[in-house]
C-alpha cells in the first residue's frame, strides 16, 4: 500500500475568506486556537459559540459548513493520550469499571480537551484550504518570521512533490521486485529494514545532487544568497474590520467562559 496523499489542500475560490489578507487569516486562526486553549474545562456555552464561529467562517468561505467538519476528525486518534483522565482525576464518582472509578471531573476534562482539539483543527483546515501556500509564506514573512526560514520552507514546498514522486517510484520499484503473500512479508525484519534504509540513502544522494544542480542554476540567474520580495501592502479596511470583529467576539467568549 503506497500511502502518499500529497494533493495540494488549497481550494480555489473568491469568497470573503479567500480574499482576506493572509496575515489576517493567520492571526485570526492563532487567536481562535489560543482562545480555545485557555477556556476552562466544561465551558460548554463558549465552546458552542466557538463552533458557531468556525462554522460561520466555513460558510463564508463558500466551501460549506460540512467541509471542515468532515475532515476535522484527523486529530481524534490522539485522544488516546488523554484517555486516562476520567480514571485519574479525583472527584465525584460517575461510574465504576471493575476496580477503576470514572469521575465526573475527569470525564469533563477529557471531553473538553477533545472538543478544544476538534475546534482548533477546523480553523486550521479552513486556513489551509482557503490560502495558497505561497500566500501563507508571504503572510508569515510579513508577520516577522525569520526570512531565511521562510525561504527554506518555500523551497521545500517547491520540491516536495518532486521528492514525493521519487519516493513513490522507489516504493513502486520495491513492490514490483517483491513477491507478496497474504499478510506475509518476505525476508527477515533486519533485511526489510535495510532495504527501506537503502531506499532512503538513495533518496539522500538524489537530494544532494539535485540541490547542487538547483543551486548552480540559481547562481547562473544571479542568486546571491537571499530571496528578494516586494514591499507589502498595508491591511485593507475589510481586513481591519474582520480582525477587530473577530477579536471582540473571542474576547467576549473568554469573558463568558471565565465569569459564568
Amino acid at each position, binding site marked *: 500500500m503506497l500511502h502518499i496523499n500529497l494533493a495540494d489542500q488549497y481550494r480555489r475560490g473568491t469568497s470573503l475568506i479567500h480574499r482576506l489578507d493572509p496575515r489576517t487569516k493567520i492571526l485570526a486562526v492563532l487567536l481562535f486556537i489560543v482562545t480555545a486553549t485557555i477556556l476552562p474545562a466544561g465551558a460548554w456555552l463558549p465552546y458552542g459559540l466557538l463552533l458557531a464561529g468556525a462554522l460561520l467562517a466555513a460558510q463564508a468561505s463558500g466551501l460549506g459548513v460540512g467541509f471542515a467538519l468532515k475532515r476535522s476528525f484527523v486529530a481524534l486518534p490522539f485522544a488516546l493520550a488523554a484517555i486516562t483522565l476520567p480514571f485519574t482525576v479525583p472527584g465525584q464518582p460517575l461510574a465504576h469499571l471493575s476496580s477503576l472509578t470514572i469521575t465526573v471531573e475527569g470525564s469533563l476534562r477529557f471531553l473538553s480537551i477533545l472538543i478544544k482539539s476538534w475546534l482548533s*483543527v477546523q480553523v486550521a483546515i479552513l486556513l489551509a484550504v482557503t490560502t495558497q501556500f505561497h500566500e501563507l509564506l508571504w503572510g508569515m514573512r510579513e508577520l516577522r518570521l525569520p526570512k531565511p526560514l521562510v525561504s527554506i520552507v518555500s523551497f521545500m514546498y517547491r520540491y516536495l512533490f518532486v521528492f514525493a514522486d521519487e519516493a513513490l517510484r522507489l516504493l513502486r520499484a520495491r513492490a514490483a521486485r517483491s513477491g507478496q503473500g497474504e499478510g506475509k512479508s518476505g525476508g527477515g525484519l533486519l533485511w526489510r529494514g*535495510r*532495504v527501506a534504509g537503502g531506499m532512503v540513502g538513495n533518496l539522500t544522494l538524489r537530494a544532494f545532487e539535485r540541490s547542487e544542480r538547483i543551486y548552480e542554476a540559481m547562481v547562473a540567474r544571479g542568486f546571491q544568497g537571499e530571496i528578494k520580495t516586494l514591499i507589502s501592502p498595508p491591511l485593507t479596511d475589510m481586513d481591519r474590520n474582520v480582525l477587530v470583529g473577530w477579536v471582540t467576539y473571542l474576547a467576549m467568549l473568554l469573558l463568558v467562559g471565565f465569569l459564568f
Partner: protein
Amino acid sequence: MIHPSVAYLHIPDGFLSLAVAGLGWLFATAAIGYALRQTRGQLGEKQIPLMGVLAAFIFAAQAINFPVAGGTSGHLLGGTLAAIVMGPWAAVLIMTSVIGVQALVFQDGGLLALGSNIVNMGILTAFAGHLVYSLVRKVMGAGRRSLLAAGAVGAWLSVLLGAAAAAIELALSGTSPLKIALPAMVGTHVLIGLGEALITVGALGFLYAARRDLLSIGETAPAQTGARWVAVGLGLALGIAALSPLASGDPDGLNRVAADLGFDGRALAPLYEIFSGYGLPLVQDPSVSKVAAVGLGTLIVFGIAFLAARLQRRRANA
C-alpha cells in the same frame, strides 16, 4: 496520510496548555534563530537551496516504510539521519520545515503546539542523535561498523527522547499523568525507534558505500563545541526529568510517606524554592504541580546550557 505511526508524536492543539505550548515556542524560536546563523556560516549562500531540498527529501523519506508485524510498519522520523549527514544545527532547520509544513498544510500536529512539536521531533532528535553518534564514534573509532552502530543507537535514543519529552509536556499540561504517559509513550517508541534505527542504519550503509565524502559534512559542521554544550544540557535536563518520577516510583505514595514522616515539603523544598515553595501556583493537582516544577527546572537547566554554549562560542570568536 504519510506517517500513521509517527503521528503519535505530532501533538494536536488542545492537548497542551498555553504555558507549555508557549514555552515550546520560546525554546524553538531560540534554537531556530541560532541554527539559522550557524548554517549561514556553514553553507553560505547555499543555505536556502540545500536546506530546502533536504527538508523536502526528509518529508518524502518519511513515506518510505517497511512492514514490521501485524499490519504495523516501520518509518523514519529523520532527525538523527539529518543530524549525522548535515550536522545538528542544519538538522534543526530541516526538521522545523518538515514539521511546520505538516502542521500548516496537512494538520499533522497543531499550530499552537507546533513549537513543542519542533522541540520534540526536530531539536531533541537532532541533538540527542548527534551527541550519541559522536560519542559512539569517539569510542569505536572510524570505519563502517562504528558508523552503523553509532547511527543505530543515536536514532533509537533520539526517538525515545522525543517521546519522553512529548509525555512530559502532556503531563505538565494536565492531559495525562506522568506515571502513565511516560511509560506508555516511551514503551511504544521503544519499538517505533527500532524502525527508525533500522532505516537510519540502512541509509548510512548505502551512503558509506556510495558517497563516503558526504558523511564528512556533518562531522565537520561548525559549532561542534556549541552543539556539544546544548546536547549535554539536553541530556542532563531530560535525565533529571525522566528520573524524577522513576526515582520516587509512585509520586503520590512518596508524598504520603513524606507527610507521615512529617517532612512534607521540607525534603524537596530547596529544589522547588524558586517555584514558590512546593509547586506552581497555577497548577492545582499536587503531583502535577510537582512534575511541572521539575519540568520547568529542566527547561531552566537547558536554558543555562544554551547560554553557556553561546558564551563559549563568543569567547572562541573573540
